[in-house]
């Protein structure tokens, strides 16, 4: 199979999977079987793209507008994001089966079908060869996740889904679309080219304005004040929060930020713009403020959501620092944070399935009943915080070097401070679960873990976070290629 074909199939296989899932409506085992097979097939396709002969490939699906095509390519940052999203989809699919059946959720067919479509969107975003293609898949991702957020169909879900859709559509149509059209008009191309396409074609005064439009237009990156959709999305079932709102959707946002910064603006051009400094400080503010908000949350999922807002801003800040070291750190943080955060969400879901508890203050003493879950939570937390021997340490390392290199002492301080805050809001739940006596006085011995289909995936992702510590070197080598050219 040629790489071009693999790229196309990677987008179409999940869509086909969604159709088959809808057709298998009344046979749950067949339906979940299809989900798993689709996830495996997708991952295999992404691996085929990743380990091909390495030659750059661009393949056109259709010419949407004169001179502007829907096209896919196999650049390294793309492969990285696609591999993370599709690889973790396999684990999440297993987890979903345990979670959705364990909770006896309604409308499971719609759930699995929309999930598959969302993955098609995420992989499409990843492999986009130009900004128009990326925008198309970005909107597919927004719309396909709306039914997932509104899944419960009660008043709460309705409100959350409304905020979700309103912010994501308003930012993308309101800011991203005009910014993109302006680049098309002035630069004559929207292709992602190493080194960027805007230098020498767009006046830096306009470029600076466009940067602000792009950064706020990519609402999925959750820069304040357009971050509210992410906590709102927590009304969704936990597998959705885990894969989509800790990995696929939000990472599609920061991936787009990186892609736009590196391949559309170009880091050198970006450095010249006055607004890159401004957006850097917006990101720094977001990462500190969201951490402080996370500290206040008693609801475990809400705390994790604000933590995600904060971690996303690491990556935006990395892009705005506009040097290779920082951008590399940002790209690696996409992977490292993915493993850490998906583990944390899986744990939150497992706790809910086993005990129906959602508030941290109710979880005292739970560690003795659910040791595997809370051990995994601890590992995930360490990964997000960035403690060796977990993958998170490397991305923070590169990020800090990048900030130090460019002389942004304030950013270095902010990153350090934020790491302390990470410890402050992620470690206490584990400590309380293991060390405090149970609130309800239920000291009965014996394990009460969630179903195996929940516990197995979260153990796998926790181990993944550990493995990433050792895989960082080959990863960063491949990623360096994105600055070549």
């Amino acid at each position, binding site marked *: 199979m040629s790489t071009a074909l693999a790229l196309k199939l990677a987008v179409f296989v999940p869509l086909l999977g969604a159709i088959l899932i809808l057709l298998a409506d009344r046979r749950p085992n067949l339906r979940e079987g299809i989900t798993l097979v689709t996830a495996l097939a997708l991952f295999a396709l992404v691996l085929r793209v990743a380990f091909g002969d390495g030659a750059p490939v661009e393949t056109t699906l*259709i*010419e*949407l*507008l*004169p001179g502007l095509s829907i096209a896919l390519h196999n650049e390294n940052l793309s492969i990285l994001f696609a591999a993370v999203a599709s690889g973790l989809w396999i684990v999440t699919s297993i987890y979903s089966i345990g979670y959705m059946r364990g909770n006896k959720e309604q409308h499971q067919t719609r759930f699995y079908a929309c999930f598959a479509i969302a993955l098609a969107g995420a992989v499409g975003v990843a492999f986009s060869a130009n900004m128009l293609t990326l*925008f*198309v898949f970005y*909107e*597919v991702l927004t*719309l396909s996740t709306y*039914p997932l957020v*509104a899944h419960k*169909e009660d008043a709460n*879900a*309705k409100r959350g*889904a*409304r905020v979700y*859709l*309103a912010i994501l*559509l*308003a930012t993308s*149509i*309101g800011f991203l*679309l*005009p910014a993109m*059209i*302006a680049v*098309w*008009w002035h630069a004559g191309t929207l292709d992602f080219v190493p080194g960027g396409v805007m230098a020498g074609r767009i006046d830096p005064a306009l470029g600076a304005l466009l940067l602000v439009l792009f950064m706020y237009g990519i609402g999925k990156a959750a820069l304040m004040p357009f971050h509210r959709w992410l906590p709102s999305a927590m009304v969704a079932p936990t597998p959705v929060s885990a894969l989509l709102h800790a990995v696929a959707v939000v990472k599609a946002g920061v991936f787009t930020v990186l892609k736009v910064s590196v391949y559309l603006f170009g880091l050198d051009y970006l450095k010249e713009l006055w607004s890159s400094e401004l957006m850097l400080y917006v990101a720094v503010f977001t990462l500190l403020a969201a951490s402080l908000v996370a500290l206040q949350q008693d609801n475990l999922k809400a705390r994790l959501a604000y933590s995600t807002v904060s971690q996303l801003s690491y990556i935006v800040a990395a892009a705005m620092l506009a040097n290779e070291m920082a951008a590399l750190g940002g790209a690696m943080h996409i992977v490292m944070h993915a493993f850490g955060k998906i583990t944390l969400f899986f744990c939150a879901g497992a706790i809910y399935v086993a005990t129906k508890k959602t508030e941290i203050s109710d979880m005292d003493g739970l560690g003795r009943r659910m040791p595997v879950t809370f051990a995994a939570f601890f590992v995930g937390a360490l990964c997000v915080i960035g403690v060796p021997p977990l993958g998170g340490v490397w991305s923070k390392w590169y990020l800090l070097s990048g900030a130090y290199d460019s002389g942004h002492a304030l950013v270095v301080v902010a990153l350090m401070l934020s790491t302390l805050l990470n410890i402050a809001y992620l470690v206490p739940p584990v400590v309380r679960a293991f060390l405090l006596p149970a609130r309800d006085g239920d000291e009965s011995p014996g394990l009460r873990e969630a179903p195996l289909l929940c516990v197995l995936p979260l153990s796998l992702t926790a181990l993944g976070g550990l493995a990433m510590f050792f895989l960082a070197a080959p990863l960063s080598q491949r990623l360096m290629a994105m600055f070549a050219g």
Partner: protein
Amino acid sequence: MSQTLALIVVVPMLGAAVAALLPAGRLPWLLATAVSWYMLAAAAMLAGQAMDLGVLSYAMGNWEPPFGIEYRLDPANALLALLISGLAAVVLPFAGRSLASEVPEEKSPYLYGALLLFLCGQMGIAVSGDAFNIFVFLEISSLATYTLIALGRDRRALTASFSYLIMGTVGATFFLIGVGLLYAMTGTLNMADLALRIPEVAASRTVHTAYAFIVVGVCLKLALFPLHLWLPNAYTYAPSAVTALMAATATKVAIYLLIRFIYSVFGADFSFGEMPTVYLLVPLAVVGLLSTSVVAIGQDKIKRMLAYSSVAQIGYMVLGIGMASATGLTAALLHLFNHALMKGALFMALGCIAIRFGTSRLEVFRGLGRRMPWTMAAFVAGGLSLIGVPLTVGFISKWYLVLAAIELGWWPIVAVIIVGSLLAVVYIWRVVEVAYLQTADDMSRCEAPLSLLVPTWVLILANFWFGIDTRLTIGIAERAAAMLSGLTP
């Protein structure tokens, strides 16, 4: 072969007379459907020729133009002819079942007679190259429309029809006065000939007056804010299939007339150099599209909501016309075609609901996501197209409109276009939430019959088809815009 250009108008005219004589029942409908399909085939053939040859011309009664009446087809009206006949060919199969439930059977011969007359008038305006002849067809289609609206089962349809009659007649009269003044100054009614002669007399006050009368008259017909007051009631109370057809074609034909007169009869130099057209059209379009979008949000009847949305969308087209650039004109022509697809589909989805509930009030939408899954899916898809989500036709329209505004450096207008789009999200999603996230007491399935669903979905798929494969629409629109404005995009 060139007779096709005449037959495309003559066949529906004769068909109307025959339909009125047929016995009540299904026969008039069958005839009308057959005629609409003939028109589509003819229009497709003509459009192909017009794209190859540039301009097709047919002299009525063999009187050479500019003395006789000339039928003339270039890329601009080829697009319009395709639109009218295409929409008619989809809506008429839908109309059979839908109108049977809304209009008493004994009226069916006159009903389909009027529908065919309406099509004849619309097509006549599209292909005629003679200004007075256009007035005649304008009246033919308008009279047919008044009848069709009055057939709505709500008695308020009568007042709606009457107020449209008054406004429409004022508009047509203004148009006629303008044409008369032009005739007095130039001695010709042939539009190609007018375009040659007007520059010689352009400085005269008579020509300025003629321009004002024609533009205002046509703007009444196309329901430009604030001349739109007839439209919401007319759309709301007309029978569903009639609304779908009218919303998709009638205002579009008037938009075409505006483009034809501004750009080719008077010429862009006169319209934008000599006359303050930009300052007339652009502010009205902007205020119109924002204010009517806001009004649409507050509507309780979804049919009326979509009617206000139509006025807003007309604002987009007029905005494109007012930009006086090739890209702006391309955007206007594209949106003319694309909006017909989305609004036609949305009104047809409402027709599917009307056949089950007899109304389009918001409360009947409760639980419809599960009760009428295909109908509501069509509504959502049409709504997404209206919002301008990528891969739908709405996105293509928005792209060109924003591009045209950026090209001119009109950033505030970019903001207006975007805000209009976001307001569409609000009014469409209001319906979606009620349909999918609320439940009714009775949750039994009540999907519309296939004879309604299939045509609705044909149009929905067209929304996606022309949103993905844009060669046909953009190709024609760009050529038409280049030809009309004399600029290359």
